[in-house]
């Protein structure tokens, strides 16, 4: 009896970990399983028969791949825009004392704290009043805006923890300010910048509410397509895209970890 207790006690953490993982991954596994289904009727909720049709013909559904391509374009551009702007804001906030610094710091947090639907509606009103036609540009502006907060937060934390003596050492070793930034500052801040960029991509790709309020009639992103399709029955191909994204994300994370570990081990 006591041996059982000892066993439980020593394996409790592992058990909790496995359960938490299962809780997180189970929905994805269901999506994966149903990407191989051949549904009877419109709805892909009940298992009927194994088929690779959706995987061999992922763009077989009208308009779906256009929406996917639009979402990827928006996500890439929003990530680049938010990462460049956010990194600069983060350096300014971490390194310099200037008028309005406190206010900027507080405002940066706002998009993370505010209900998305409020932000979406106010942005929509703003664009309408400024007579900017809804479309690709308005979506991009909105996405860069809310991604910015995450980049600033990630990069700022990294910059604050950097030893200022490293940059002084670089200058002492004949590096001009530009060389110091490129050779020392930027490589040291890179993990924070990468984290911010990854977050931006994920957030932008998957955003529905803000996009819904600020898109035009011809700009239907992938989340909007899925929402529209769900009224009539979600095609199996959506599961294929979902699964592909999941695998890509896992591969990226595991790959990053592996690379990090290897670098540590080799170096």
């Amino acid at each position: 009896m006591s041996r059982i207790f000892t066993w439980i006690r020593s394996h409790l953490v592992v058990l909790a970990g496995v359960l938490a993982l299962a809780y997180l991954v189970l929905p994805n596994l269901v999506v994966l399983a149903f990407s191989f289904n051949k549904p009877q009727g419109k709805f892909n909720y009940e298992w009927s028969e194994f088929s690779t049709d959706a995987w061999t013909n992922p763009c077989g559904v009208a308009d779906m791949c256009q929406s996917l391509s639009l979402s990827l374009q928006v996500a890439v551009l929003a990530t680049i825009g938010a990462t460049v702007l956010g990194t600069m804001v983060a350096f300014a906030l971490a390194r310099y004392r200037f008028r309005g610094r406190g206010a900027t710091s507080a405002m940066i947090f706002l998009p993370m704290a505010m209900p998305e639907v409020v932000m979406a509606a106010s942005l929509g009103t703003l664009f309408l009043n400024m007579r900017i036609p809804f479309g690709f540009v308005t979506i991009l502006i909105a996405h860069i805006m809310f991604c910015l907060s995450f980049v600033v937060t990630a990069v700022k934390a990294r910059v604050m923890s950097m030893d200022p003596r490293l940059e002084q050492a670089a200058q002492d070793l004949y590096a001009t300010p530009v060389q110091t930034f490129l050779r020392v500052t930027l490589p040291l801040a890179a993990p924070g910048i990468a984290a911010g960029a990854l977050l931006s991509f994920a957030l932008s790709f998957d955003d529905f509410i803000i996009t819904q309020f600020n898109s035009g009639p011809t700009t239907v992103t992938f989340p909007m397509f899925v929402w529209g399709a769900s009224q009539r029955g979600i095609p199996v191909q959506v599961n294929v895209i979902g699964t592909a994204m999941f695998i890509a994300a896992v591969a990226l994370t595991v790959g990053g970890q592996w690379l990090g570990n290897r670098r540590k081990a080799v170096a």
Partner: protein
Amino acid sequence: MTDQLRDSAAGGDVRLTGIGKTYGAFTAVHPLDLTVPQGSFFALLGASGCGKTTTLRMIAGLEEPTSGTVVIGGQDVTALPPYRRPVNTVFQSYALFPHLDIFENVAFGLRRRGRKDVKKQVEDMLELVELGQFARRKPHQLSGGQQQRVAVARALINHPQVLLLDEPLGALDLKLRRQMQLELKRIQTEVGITFVHVTHDQEEAMTMADTIAVMNGGRVEQLGAPADLYENPASTFVANFLGQSNLITAQVTGAEGTDLLLSAGGVRLAVPKARCATGAKEIYLGVRPEKITIAHASAEVAGNRNRLGGTVVDSSFIGVSTQYVVRTDAGQEVAVFEQNMERDARIVPGAPVVLHWNPAHSFGMDAAQAIDAGTGEAAA
């Protein structure tokens, strides 16, 4: 390699003229003049906050002086940014680039100046500091002493006219510190570059430097060779900060030959005129603890020696010597270090003793200054 370094060291004088630094209302360094001769090992010694690091950083260009000029090897560099000055710094806690391996850390300065053939030079430099096999390691995989040597190699490879060292041994344990002191001294002698070394460790400064500037409160208190500072301190701060001193308040009563005659609570003492720069009537008579001989009160003492009666308060045996604290008849506590050669078993706490020393081993200074300056117990 070392010949090359020696050639580049020509004209490495550092001349500071009226250089000072204030931060708002706080004066970190009062305008001071200092000349570090080419090829010397120069130490800036002082407690934390005395302005020694600020002075070093002004030479490096990392701090902009409020006043004055910095001239290195005849060239006025006051207006030059750090990356255009012919100096390199070994930083406190080393500041090695964590994202670069040891090889690239050492090659950094050469690459920034557009040198292409860095491989041979870097390898030679790593050999000099005995880290050849660690070239592809990252800094965090090295021990403190190894990192310290990388920091020195990274600076020296650039053949600076002056090498600046900002408490480079502060993070090392005692044994390693002693070892690195000798190592740094050896490298300095070998390459002949001017070293300016900042430290709060008086023993470290005395072991390594040819010349020491003792700093206190943003000013240079005294400048000189280690032995000179130790034997002839110019102020109570220097007397207490550099080693340990017994300072006895005394009145000048007259002169006899080359000596000044003093009276300390009725006891007659003497100090050489040459070692008492002040003309004051009341002075401190200083004597180092190891210069004093301790004897039982009943012992015979030659007549020409300074002599103080007292009682042993405390004695601690520390191996090579025994340290006594003696309360004199006038009520002052005096420290005495006695070699453990012929110990008198009667000298134990409570025993009456007589302290005596050669008057030539005393020094005198104006009593119009804090007696406990530089002891660490003083307020500032």
